[in-house]
């Protein structure tokens, strides 16, 4: 951050030139300097015009970000900047808007809470480090990332990408393209369909959705459950190291199954029992088809148990 500010200062000096300029700074200069200065918490209440499907970039290093879609062609930011914030970078107009908390010291200690109203069809790009993120009532696309904090997305966003390290991710809605990840936290996906990629390391991963054409779900030690239907020709892949796997699929599913576990158990409600593969290892493998085949279902674990259920 300090080098960044230093370079920005140089940029400003460069922009000022040898003969000085008008006293009124440009919008870009204001953005870099921050609209306000001071060490105390400050209230924010600002708005800018935006197009219906504007790209809205939001950055808040620590605290919380709450984004709500509305039917107005403008972005409104309310909330509070934490002590130590030098200002709010609220710039752009029309197709691209940026909202960012500016700080002059370690940004992770500046805890700000922002509530941002955006046009309902906005395309969101949200970043935090030590902050939680929630998005609701947006039908455009959502990309949200944090390290220490949970992410919640509800509503009708058509594409969702939500990734955290230490926190849960919860997505509920009708997304057709969903990518969710955590490391230390649970991942829950409800109502999604189409394409899905979901993973966590030691949290629980739960998917209950519609009909998927491609789904890849994985954990390391967390348990994994998937409940949904598959299109003909769909691909469903589930993988854990030590976490258990439960797949609940329609009894009528037409799919080719490939299931293996090195030392776990396999419980198959669709028919054939698993066979031990090696004479010297406990590895079990199961391959079979239902309904004449079509979709591809593969499940692989090291020591986690595998359960295939009809629903």
């Amino acid at each position, binding site marked *: 951050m300090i080098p960044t500010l230093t370079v920005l200062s140089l940029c400003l000096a460069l922009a000022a030139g040898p003969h000085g300029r008008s006293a009124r700074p440009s919008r870009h200069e204001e953005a870099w300097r921050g609209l306000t200065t001071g060490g105390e918490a400050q209230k924010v209440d600002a708005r800018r015009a935006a197009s219906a499907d504007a790209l809205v970039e939001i950055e808040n290093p620590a605290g919380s970000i709450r984004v709500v879609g509305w039917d107005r062609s403008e972005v409104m930011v309310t909330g509070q900047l934490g002590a130590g914030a030098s200002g709010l970078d609220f710039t752009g107009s029309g197709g691209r808007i940026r909202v960012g908390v500016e700080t002059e010291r370690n940004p992770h200690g500046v805890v700000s809470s922002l509530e941002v109203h955006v046009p309902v069809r906005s395309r969101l790009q949200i970043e935090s480090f030590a902050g939680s993120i929630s998005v609701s009532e947006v039908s455009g696309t959502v990309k949200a990332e944090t390290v220490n904090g949970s992410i919640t997305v509800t509503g009708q966003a058509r594409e969702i990408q939500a990734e955290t390290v230490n926190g849960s991710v919860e997505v509920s809605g009708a997304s057709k393209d969903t990518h969710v990840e955590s490391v230390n936290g649970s991942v829950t996906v409800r109502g999604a369909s189409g394409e899905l990629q979901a993973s966590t390391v030691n949290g629980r991963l739960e998917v209950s959705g519609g009909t998927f054409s491609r789904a890849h779900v*994985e954990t390391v030690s967390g348990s994994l459950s998937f409940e949904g239907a598959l299109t003909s020709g769909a691909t469903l892949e589930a993988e854990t190291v030590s976490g258990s796997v439960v797949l609940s699929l329609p009894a009528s599913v037409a799919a080719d199954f490939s299931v293996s576990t090195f030392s776990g158990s396999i419980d198959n409600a669709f028919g054939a029992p698993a066979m031990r593969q090696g004479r010297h*290892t406990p590895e079990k493998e199961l391959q079979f088809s239902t309904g004449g085949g079509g979709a591809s279902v593969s499940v692989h674990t090291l020591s986690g148990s595998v359960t295939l259920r009809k629903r």
Partner: protein
Amino acid sequence: MTCEQVRDALDDYVDGLLTEADFQEVELHLATCAECRREERLQRALLAQAAALPREVPPGRDLWPELAARLRGAEGARGVVRPSVARWVRPAALAAAAAVVVALFAGLWKRGPSPVAPASPMGTLVSAAAGTSPALLEAEREYARATAALMAALDQQKNTLSPETRAVLDANLKTIDDALAEVRAALQKDPGSAQLAHLLTSTHQKKLDALQRVVRLNRL
């Protein structure tokens, strides 16, 4: 347009946000006004320098094709497991990780003769993975180098990374390391298992993904 009107519109002009009519008017004015042209150049210089600030490590070369080829070679008769996963999930993520590794190594190399010395993890790898294929071992080395480079980058950010966050990260990395140890132990019993080879690489990848995210977002 007057000079004042043009200067009011310069922000949107350089951002490409003006309507066509306004854009043409500003262009017309700039063609005849040296002072406003100077203002415009200063605006663009400011933006260019700001845009040049390093926010992410730039992409380097994609190591995935080499890794996939080595794994294919290693898994020979049993074939590469789940190529669809490799095509869909891994290349982009691994390319990004590999890019970070390459860039970080390049940056670190310039500072001294010993860029990264992941002696301990490499030593563990060699002994723990004895019996596995050379290709997989080489893949493990690649991941170990990548991990070491990202850990070094993280150490350089310790002033902005809270001890609590670092502790959480370390605990989760340990979970992943424990899982890797389990997979390696299984591979020693069944060195030819393509499923286990895939589990090993995908578990490594999770570790890289987590580290990358922390390093990148810590720059916010």
